[in-house]
């Protein structure tokens, strides 16, 4: 087949026009949809550890359909920084919502739940790991959260409180740094690792597959969850109703049922 120069030129012009069109279309699209929010829907970005509690709360939430998206809190914060705007951002710490608040991306955050970092082991894993001290063992494998993910940062804080030799030996046994707490739970329930640092609520939510080993009181980090309405939310009222329910009502009950503590109460 012979392609004439004219046809090539035509194609090039078309291509250029289309690229221009698609770019300008994206620009105008944002403006037209930003105001026309759907009040029947609340979009919630939440920490992976909130999965069970918020899914059950979302099912009971009457005034709107709740669309939940779970990931590592730091990933969700990065999405918000990139302009992805859910109505509500619920994180596994207070640091990330506070940062976003300072950057002017969310409204003032509130604390809505507490959790506890524990050392989790597979329930059928024998007694290879029965205490924090066992994590330094020769043949022991560990999964932790990556740096920047709340569960990873809490874990680092715990290890920082240990004698240096011990924390070094524990870190040397780490085989995976997971992007969210769900990844650690998965590795544990699959028996891929012998131990991992997760939240108490994760152990309670694992249907008996995991066993929690409590950390010494002096090492326990304060695990507080913060939630905020995202600035420019499509459904601000729905988001506020969702947050209110987390503080008092169906959401608070779902959190308590799933092993979370009440805010401020410790």
């Amino acid at each position, binding site marked *: 087949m012979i392609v004439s120069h004219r046809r090539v030129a035509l194609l090039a012009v*078309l291509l250029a026009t*289309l690229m221009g069109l698609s770019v300008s279309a994206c620009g105008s699209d944002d403006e037209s949809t930003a105001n026309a929010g759907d009040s029947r829907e609340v979009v919630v970005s939440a920490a992976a550890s909130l999965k069970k509690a918020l899914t059950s709360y979302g099912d009971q939430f009457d005034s709107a359909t709740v669309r939940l998206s779970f990931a590592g809190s730091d*990933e969700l914060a990065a999405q918000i920084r990139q302009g992805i705007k859910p109505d509500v951002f619920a994180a596994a710490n207070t640091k990330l919502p506070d940062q976003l608040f300072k950057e002017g991306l969310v409204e003032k955050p509130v604390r809505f739940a507490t959790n506890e970092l524990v050392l989790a082991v597979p329930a059928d894993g024998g007694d290879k790991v029965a205490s924090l001290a066992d994590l330094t063992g020769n043949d022991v*494998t560990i999964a932790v959260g990556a740096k920047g993910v709340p569960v990873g940062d809490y874990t680092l804080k715990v290890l920082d409180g240990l004698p240096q030799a011990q924390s070094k030996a524990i870190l040397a046994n780490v085989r995976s*740094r*997971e992007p969210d707490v769900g990844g650690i739970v998965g*590795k544990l329930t699959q028996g891929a690792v012998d131990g991992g640092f997760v939240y108490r609520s994760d152990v309670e939510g694992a249907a008996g597959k995991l066993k929690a080993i409590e950390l010494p009181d002096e090492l326990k980090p304060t695990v507080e969850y913060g939630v905020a309405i995202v600035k420019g939310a499509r459904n601000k009222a729905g988001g506020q109703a969702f947050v209110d329910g987390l503080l008092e009502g169906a959401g608070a009950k779902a959190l308590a049922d799933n092993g979370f503590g009440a805010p401020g109460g410790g």
Partner: protein
Amino acid sequence: MSQARWFPPLLAVALAVALSFLTLPIVAIFVDSGPAELLSSLDDAAAIDALTLSLWTSTVALVIIVVVGTPAAYLLATRRFRARNVLITLIELPLVLPPAVAGIGLLAALGPNGLFGQALDDAGIRVVLTTLSVILALTFVAAPFYLRQAEAAFSALDRSWLDASRTLGAGEATTFARVAIPAALPGLIAGLALAWGRALGEFGATLMFAGSFRGVTQTVPLAIYERFATDFTAALGLSAVLVAVSAAILMTVKLATRASPARVLTR
């Protein structure tokens, strides 16, 4: 011609839409991350570890795929038997599987609690969260791309060549090595490029089956994901590097195929 004047422009529009949609994200990566970011991401030791790991694990996976896949595809292409279509479908299945399913499947088969977990443990082989698990994940997701293309390439060969080779006294093995492979080479190389690209881009199955640990299991896509949360600029820079590496592989393969004399032969 006159009754379908609208048709050629329609084709051009379709191509233009496809092109702009497919190139836009890649263009954006390079627009957002200037050469400075690209270079500074190469200055990051963890990124270099990820790149090195990605390159060598995907190379090992590709070697396995080619060594096992080429004769397997040849058999599928040159024999006619009843279960052939079933076998081809089974081999192609991983193509349409979500990576997460691949990850779960690999865990269910080779994980400590999986089908062969106990046997592997007894043999003293630890698969999950090791570099071996990365190679297995890459091989699993990438192999169908090569097998499929290789089967098609062998099927397209002129049967009379293979027959002639045998009539002239060459055995089946010699025919395979000296006639079939050279003649099917462009197709095989195209399959290799696709499989390699898929292996370099593998994310989901690797994360689930192999985890993420610098220098051991953290390939470039996993390193990009980790940076996405903490340092978007670094994530962009590393993405640009991966695009460049993948494009380089694709281009090299295309050029190699063009230069190959086998292409002339098969015509």
